[in-house]
């Protein structure tokens, strides 16, 4: 089984676009998105109670190689520092990828 990095990013809906653009610019073109993620963080409650999709989060998940992660991590950290959001990374084994 391949060893991969599982990158999970939670950002508000409008901020997902710049993050996806950043990932794609670093060659990460395969990802999954879970929409309508509710939660609570530094910016208060994200409960989806608005019409602009401002108060709702999305979860972006991608499985990447360690090399790709090393290339993208600083840019991603800078982007999330600028606009907010969280990212966690974990080591996983891939049964099929």
């Amino acid at each position: 089984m391949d060893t991969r990095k599982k990158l999970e990013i939670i950002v508000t809906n409008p901020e997902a676009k710049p993050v996806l653009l950043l990932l794609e610019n670093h060659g990460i073109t395969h990802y999954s998105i879970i929409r309508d993620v509710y939660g609570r963080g530094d910016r208060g409650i994200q409960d989806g109670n608005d019409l602009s999709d401002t108060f709702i989060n999305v979860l972006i998940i991608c499985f990447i190689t360690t090399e790709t992660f090393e290339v993208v991590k600083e840019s991603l950290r800078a982007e999330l520092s600028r606009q907010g959001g969280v990212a966690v990374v974990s080591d996983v084994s891939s049964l099929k990828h």
Partner: protein
Amino acid sequence: MIDNLLNPAILFFALGFFATLVKSDLEIPQSISKFVSLYLLMSIGLKGGIQIAANPITADILIILGVAIAFSALIPFAVFFSLGNRFRVEDKAAIAATYGSVSAVTFVTAVNYLGQLDIAFGGHMVAALALMEAPALISGFWLYKRYSTDTVQDSGHSNWEAITNASVLLILGAIVIGIIANDAALDRVKPFTESLFQGMLMFFLLDMGLLASKRISALRDTGIVTIMVAILIPLISAALAIAISWLLSLNLGDAFLLTILCASASYIAAPAALRIAIPKANAGLYVPMALAITFPMNLIFGFPLYLKILQSIL
């Protein structure tokens, strides 16, 4: 004023507000809210386009549209500098952009209000609604770039977002379709685009009442100044619009809608663009100000007040 309060649309807004206060489980699924808001924008855009097609564009209309754009671009500057040092630069810029931009929902409700009073207005005012969304957002972001000590990224993406956001694109598209589509075909869709309008608006205001009530709790910690700002900015903007309407001798319907546009604040298009353009601005501040204070204030007290003043001077 009492007549306005007994309008079923306003009463449903109040019901939505009340439902949240008593912790009722009444809620409208998000996808239905979005559908109804898109329906209202499409319907109002078509109506504007049909009216524009029936009446040729004159120099007076172009002046009104120019004034509307100028208002949208300049109100953020007045708001930004009048807020002083009570707010952070990013919050001032976001509030400025929010109050320079316009609320399509307030506009749609105002059109319905005029319809109930049999007061005519020009279809070009719907175009004014679409044209007033973006300039304020661009001004707000410029103010942020100019006065922020942070390193600010290029605004190109968010400016484009402001111009192509769903509400602007749908209204402009519906106006164009209303202008070019043939009359017979438009007549066939009237049961959907016009007959359902008032009922849809009433249902939508129920949802807006629910949202406004949920958002108002975010202002509890920000103090009375924030609430006063959310009340005073629209009143001052409305006074300026009324003065300009008098100077330009606008007809009552156009003057009322220009006043409503200037007095309203965006809580759909603006937050989406500002989250990208000014991410450090607190959306928990500028969205509740616009949605939970300014919107109901205009709806309940603003409409009859602005109309009464305009009727007395025009």
